[in-house]
């Protein structure tokens, strides 16, 4: 089978299928992942082909899902957990932070927990409360977890396969508003890059826009718009939020002298805060402007009819680009 035009959902589905085929210890577990195929259909068809024993519809209890996934991993399995929506990971948060993240260290390396936690995250789909959260900072703040977020179907496919193959716990944040974007994926090919590497999604020399997951597309559009005004904007797709590929960021910002970080999550204490601080440390003498951040406000994610105000869009990114360029 050659390369195919896949939606992100299909790219993820195909990644799960390949991983299940490659390793009989790989399991998929979560709410409604079986016959329904998940509320976003990411696990569509897997139950039919791999059966009850490997595609596990769990009771409605996220702490239970996470805790039993840990037990299964201790027994040599490789669970891929689906959390139905971002806002419902919190019942599992205790297991993730106090157990999943720390067990390898506590056992002095004798225990490995190769668990992938897939979470559809972020807003922009007009959903009700708790279905639009961006909680990446909570996870990235926790040593022992790896955190990644693809921005397009190709990365979604390969990064999920890499995450499942990883012997560390990986929080895999799927930008749900990009689920239906298309891309050409060749499942028989090779992963385009290591899991924890950033990627220059668009080269430029005047300023570096840094984003991940859902905001990469917005930044690419902003770079396109800025080009009409004669500004060459570089866009770096971070891909991995922990660890962060600071070398790629440093190289970019040292060339451009300016950086703007964009995410949906609130700016305060968000990923952008850490990125800005590290970039400043590494690139201080190359910087022409402070590293600016564009993100959600310090307020609960709003009702869907005003979410467009809350979410960074082309205009807000360009506004920050202009401010950075004006320094």
């Amino acid at each position: 089978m050659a390369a195919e035009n896949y939606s992100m959902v299909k790219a993820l589905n195909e990644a799960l299928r390949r991983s299940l085929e490659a390793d009989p210890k790989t399991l998929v577990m979560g709410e409604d992942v079986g016959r329904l195929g998940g509320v976003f259909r990411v696990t569509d068809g897997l139950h039919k082909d791999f059966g009850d024993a490997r595609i596990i519809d769990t009771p409605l209890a996220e702490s239970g899902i996470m805790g039993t996934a840990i037990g299964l991993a201790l027994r040599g399995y490789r669970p891929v957990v689906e959390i139905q929506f971002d806002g419902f990971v919190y019942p599992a948060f205790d297991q993730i932070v106090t157990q999943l993240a720390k067990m390898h260290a506590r056992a002095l390396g004798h225990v490995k927990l190769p668990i992938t936690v897939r979470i559809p995250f972020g807003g922009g789909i007009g959903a009700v409360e708790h279905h639009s959260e961006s909680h990446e900072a909570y996870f990235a703040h926790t040593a022992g977890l790896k955190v990644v977020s693809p921005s397009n179907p190709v990365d979604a496919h390969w990064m999920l396969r890499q995450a499942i193959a990883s012997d560390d716990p990986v929080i895999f944040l799927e930008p749900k508003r990009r689920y239906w974007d298309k891309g050409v994926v060749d499942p028989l090919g090779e992963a385009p890059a290591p899991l924890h590497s950033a990627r220059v999604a668009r080269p430029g020399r005047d300023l570096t826009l840094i984003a991940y997951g859902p905001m990469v597309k917005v930044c690419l559009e902003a770079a396109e718009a800025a080009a009409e005004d004669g500004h060459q904007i570089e866009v770096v797709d971070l891909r991995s939020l922990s660890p962060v590929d600071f070398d790629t960021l440093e190289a970019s910002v040292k060339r451009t002298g300016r950086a703007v970080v964009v995410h949906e999550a609130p700016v305060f204490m968000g990923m952008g805060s850490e990125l800005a601080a590290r970039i400043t440390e590494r690139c201080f003498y190359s910087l022409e402007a402070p590293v600016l951040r564009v993100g959600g406000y310090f307020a609960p994610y709003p009702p869907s009819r005003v979410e467009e105000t809350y979410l960074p869009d082309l205009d807000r990114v360009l506004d920050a680009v202009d401010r950075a360029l004006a320094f």
Partner: protein
Amino acid sequence: MTVESTAGTATAAVPELVQLLTPEGERVEHPRFSLETTPEELRSIYRDLVLVRRFDGEATALQRQGELGLWASLLGQEAAQVGSGRAQRPGDWAFPTYREHGVAWCKGVDPLNLLGMFRGVNHGGWDPYEKNFQLYTIVIGSQTLHATGYAMGITKDGTDDAVVAYFGDGASSQGDVNEAFTFASVYNAPVVFFCQNNQWAISEPTERQTRVPLYQRAAGFGFPGVRVDGNDVLACLAVTRWALERARNGEGPTLIEAFTYRMGAHTTSDDPTRYRIADELEEWKLKDPIERVKAYLVREEWADQEFFDAVDAESEQLARRVREGVRNMPDPDPTSIFGHVYAEGHALVDEERAQYVEYAASFDGSEEVGEGR
């Protein structure tokens, strides 16, 4: 006899189901639960059931028309909600999930209030103290703990109010729900756990959550559990009243499992044809919660065609009011994002609000310039 899988044996014995009105509309007696109803009260119950169903149907239609982003229909669960809702006194509190439109109705909450969050103009927005009806809760099971804590407060205050905590069969698996059972039991809290077992948690059947009938779980926590015909409004009313009386009398919590069926999709986003067979639906159609009340009213000659027509007309009026109300619901002002984040205010919220206002104003300016040209 060979012992088969435990799943088979555990559910083999048909558990007792409290019923006072059969699907055919026959009034039957139950040794433990009795109910006195006047014809007038029955007509009022019928009216509630019909209006609630009509409201729900209208909301589904409004979602299809794009006026709501989502709707979680209560179709099939009217009796469980109207029965348990009517059992409450005004001082009692209800802690709902996202599907308790019928309970809200009985508590006197304006149905339009329920639609704001489904339209996407707020996250609830009503004042829970106004009708003692807490905000809808989307995170499965959370509200059962709030209900228990509220009930603990009632005990401390020494009043005879009580609380009803609503949740689903799926929710029965959540840690929060089981912790609520524990707290309620330990503190002998005046709370009624009202579980609507509608047989499904999205695509997962109840067997995915439990191998014993849900009401039996209560025994392990140290309080009584009762399974009631959730499509029998009279049984739901009688059993909830009984449980609330127990709560008021200091006898502690009760678990009621209202055995019912989710006749529609989980929400308007769901496609149940992917996971359940139509036969099941047909079977439950024969147990419709409204038809049996109507049959009873007709048999006893407590209502005539004029009455039924009047209720239908009223339900159409309600639908019209809801339709118009929803269409006229204004989108929130963007600055409302920053409203009510804190009771005492917060410097960063204020700062970001000011930044946003300035930013938004910069567009007004440019638009004006554009228009001027």
